[in-house]
C-alpha cells in the first residue's frame, strides 16, 4: 500500500517536472475574437511557437463581437474582429487601441447548376437583383445575356445565406449595398441582415451543405470553403467591367488598388475596389491591441509576434486561401507597431 503510494507520488512529481520544463520563462498570450481568420491565426501561433518555444499564444475563436468585448474588458491581450471598430466604439475603449489589419479574405458566390459545372458570370446589377429576389428563375434573360452559349435551366433560384452573424455576411452585404441603392435601402449592411428571401445555413459549412444539396441554389461562402467543397464559383464583374474569379491574388490586387485610402484609414472598406484584376468582394480582418502595454514582458512578445506576422506570417496566407496584405499595407502596419509603447 505504502509502496504504491510512493510510486504514485514519484510518478506525479516526475510528470510535473516534465510538463513544467521551462515553466519559469514561458510567456502566454491570450487572444479572442473572429472565427474567419482562425485557421490562419492558429497556423501562425503554432509556427511561432516552433520558432520561439517559450511563447505560447492561445486564441479562442468566439466571434468578433466577443473579441471586442473581451479586449474591452482587458481579459485578453489582443482581440480580433472582422469589422473594424467604429470611431465611437474606439472611444468607448478604456485605453487607446490600434487596429492592425492582418490578412484579407474574399467571399465567393457559389451555385449549384448541374448543366453549368463552371464559368458562370454575373454583372453587378444581376447579382444584386438575384439577392433581392427580383430575378427568380435561372433562365432569366438577364442572366442569359451575360452568359452566351451557356444552357441555363428553367429552375427557381434558391438563395442560401448565413443564418449566424458573421463577418462574411458583412463583407457580402457591404458590397451589395455599394452596387445597389435598393439593396442598401431595403436590406443594408450588417453581420446579420433581414434577407428578403432564401434559406439560412449555419456557418460556412452549413451554407456549403445547403448549396450542394439544393439544385438551383445560389449562395456566398468564404473563398476557402468554396475550394474545399469543390463548389463552382461565379466570376464577378468588377468596377472596371472585367469578370474576375476569386483568388488570393485578385484579392491582394484589390487591396493594392486601394492603397491611398487604406493609408489614410485602415478601416476603409475594400469591397468594389478599382483596378483591372481586383476581385470585388473581399475584406480585411483586424487585430485590436492597446497602445499602452502595461505588462512589459507580454507587450514585448506581442510586438515581436505582430512584426513576425507582418513579414514571415504573410507568406503562410495563400496556402490557406487567405490573401497576403499588399507591401504598402505591411509598411503602414510596421509604422503603427512602432508606436506601441512598452512600459
Amino acid at each position: 500500500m505504502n509502496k504504491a503510494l510512493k510510486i504514485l507520488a514519484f510518478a506525479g512529481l516526475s510528470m510535473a517536472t516534465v510538463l513544467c520544463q521551462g515553466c519559469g520563462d514561458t510567456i502566454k498570450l491570450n487572444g479572442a475574437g473572429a472565427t474567419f481568420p482562425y485557421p490562419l491565426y492558429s497556423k501562425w501561433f503554432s509556427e511561432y511557437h516552433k520558432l520561439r518555444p517559450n511563447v505560447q499564444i492561445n486564441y479562442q475563436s468566439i466571434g468578433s463581437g466577443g473579441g471586442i468585448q473581451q479586449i474591452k474588458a482587458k481579459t485578453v491581450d489582443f482581440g480580433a474582429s472582422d469589422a473594424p471598430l467604429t470611431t465611437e466604439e474606439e472611444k468607448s475603449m478604456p485605453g487607446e487601441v490600434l487596429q492592425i489589419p492582418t490578412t484579407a479574405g474574399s467571399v465567393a458566390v457559389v451555385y449549384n447548376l448541374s448543366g453549368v459545372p463552371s464559368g458562370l458570370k454575373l454583372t453587378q446589377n444581376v447579382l444584386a437583383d438575384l439577392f433581392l429576389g427580383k430575378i427568380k428563375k435561372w433562365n432569366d434573360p438577364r442572366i442569359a445575356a451575360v452568359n452566351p452559349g451557356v444552357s441555363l435551366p428553367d429552375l427557381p433560384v434558391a438563395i442560401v445565406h448565413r443564418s449566424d452573424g458573421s463577418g462574411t455576411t458583412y463583407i457580402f452585404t457591404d458590397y451589395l449595398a455599394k452596387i445597389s441603392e435598393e439593396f442598401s435601402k431595403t436590406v443594408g449592411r450588417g453581420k446579420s441582415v433581414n434577407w428578403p428571401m432564401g434559406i439560412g445555413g449555419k456557418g460556412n459549412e452549413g451554407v456549403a451543405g445547403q448549396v450542394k444539396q439544393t439544385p438551383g441554389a445560389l449562395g456566398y461562402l468564404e473563398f476557402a470553403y468554396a475550394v474545399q467543397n469543390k463548389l463552382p464559383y461565379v466570376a464577378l464583374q468588377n468596377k472596371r467591367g472585367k469578370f474576375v474569379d476569386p483568388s488570393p491574388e485578385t484579392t491582394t490586387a484589390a487591396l493594392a488598388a486601394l492603397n491611398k485610402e487604406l493609408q489614410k484609414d485602415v478601416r476603409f472598406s475594400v469591397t468594389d475596389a478599382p483596378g483591372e484584376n481586383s476581385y470585388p468582394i473581399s475584406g480585411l480582418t483586424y487585430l485590436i491591441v492597446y497602445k499602452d502595454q502595461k505588462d512589459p514582458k507580454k507587450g514585448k512578445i506581442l510586438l515581436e509576434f505582430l512584426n513576425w506576422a507582418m513579414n514571415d506570417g504573410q507568406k503562410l496566407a495563400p496556402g490557406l486561401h487567405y490573401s497576403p496584405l499588399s507591401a504598402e499595407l505591411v509598411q503602414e502596419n510596421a509604422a503603427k507597431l512602432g508606436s506601441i509603447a512598452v512600459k
Partner: protein
Amino acid sequence: MRVALIHPLIKRTGEGDRNRLDSITLTQIPQEKSERAVPSLKQKSRFNAERLFKGILLLFSLLILLIVLAIFFELIRSSSLSLKTFGFSFVTGRVWDPVKEIYGALPFIYGTVVSSLIAMAISIPVSLGVALFLTEWAPLWMRTIVSFLVELLAAIPSVIYGLWGIFVMIPFLRTNVAPFLQETFGFLPLFDGPFYGVSLLSAGLILSIMVLPTITAVSREVFLAVPQELREAVLALGGTRWESIRLAVLKMSRSGIIGAVVLGLGRALGETMAVTMVIGNRPEIVASLFSPGYSLASVIANEFSEATTPLYLSALAECGLILLAVTFVVNGLARLLVRKKSA
C-alpha cells in the same frame, strides 16, 4: 429540474401502495436497528450525522431554486433594454432586422411552437404505441432489445441528428415524401409552395425522433406501474385485451402519460442544434410546412456570438426569456391538466 417536477405525477399513477410500503421500510428499519445494535454514546453522533445529511440535502434543493431564480433574474436584467424599447410589440412584431435594429420575435415563437407541435403529433401516438406494445404484448427478449434501442436514441448527440437530417432525411423527403404530399394534399395551405428541404416540416420530423425515447421510456415505466390485478380484473369480467388496456392501463396512467408528454415537449421546445440545421433559419410566418422557419433557441445560437450592439444583445436575451416563459407555461398547463383529471 423538469424531471423533479414531473416525477410526482408519475408516481401517483398506481404505485401508491408500493410507495407507502417503501417509505415504511425506509423509515422504520434503521430506527429499529439503531436502538438495538448501537450503543447510546454513538447514537448522539449518528443523530448529528443525520441532521448534517438532511442539511446537505436541503442545501442541494435550495440550490436548484436559487439557480432557477438566478437564471430568471439574469435574463430579465440583460433583456431590460429590449423590454423597455419594444415593450409588448417585441412579442407581436414580425420583423427581425439587426441592421435597422428592429426586433420582433413572433416568427421565432411561431416556429418553435409549430415545429414542436408537429413533433408531438407524430411522436405521441408512436411512443405510446411502442410503450404499450413493450409492456403488454412483446416477448421478453424483444422487450430488452427494443428498450435498449429506444434508450440509445436518447443518447445520440443532437448535432448528429442534425447532420443525419441534412444528409439523409431531407434528400429522402425531397424525392419521396414532399412530391406525394404535394400531389395529394397540395390543395391545403399546409403543403403549398416549393420544397427546398430545410423547413418547418423537417424540423418537426427530426424533433419527433428526438423526443420519442423520452416519451416512450417514461410512459413504459408508467404502464409497468399499473398493478397486474387491474388488468386481470377486466379480463375476468369478460373484457378483451384492448378493453383491459383501455380501462385499466390507460385510465390509470393518464396523469403519467401527460407527464411523459410534457417532458418530451420540453425537449422539443428547447432543442437548438438539430433544429437550426434543418429548419432553414428564416424569420417568417407562412402557413406552409414546406417553407423554412426559425425557432427561439436557434436565433440565440445563431446570432449571439456576433451581436455587438447593446440593443441587439438585449433582444436576443429577451428571446431566451420568452423561451423560458413558453416552457414554464407549457409545464404549468400540463400540471393543471393533471390536477383536474386526478381530482
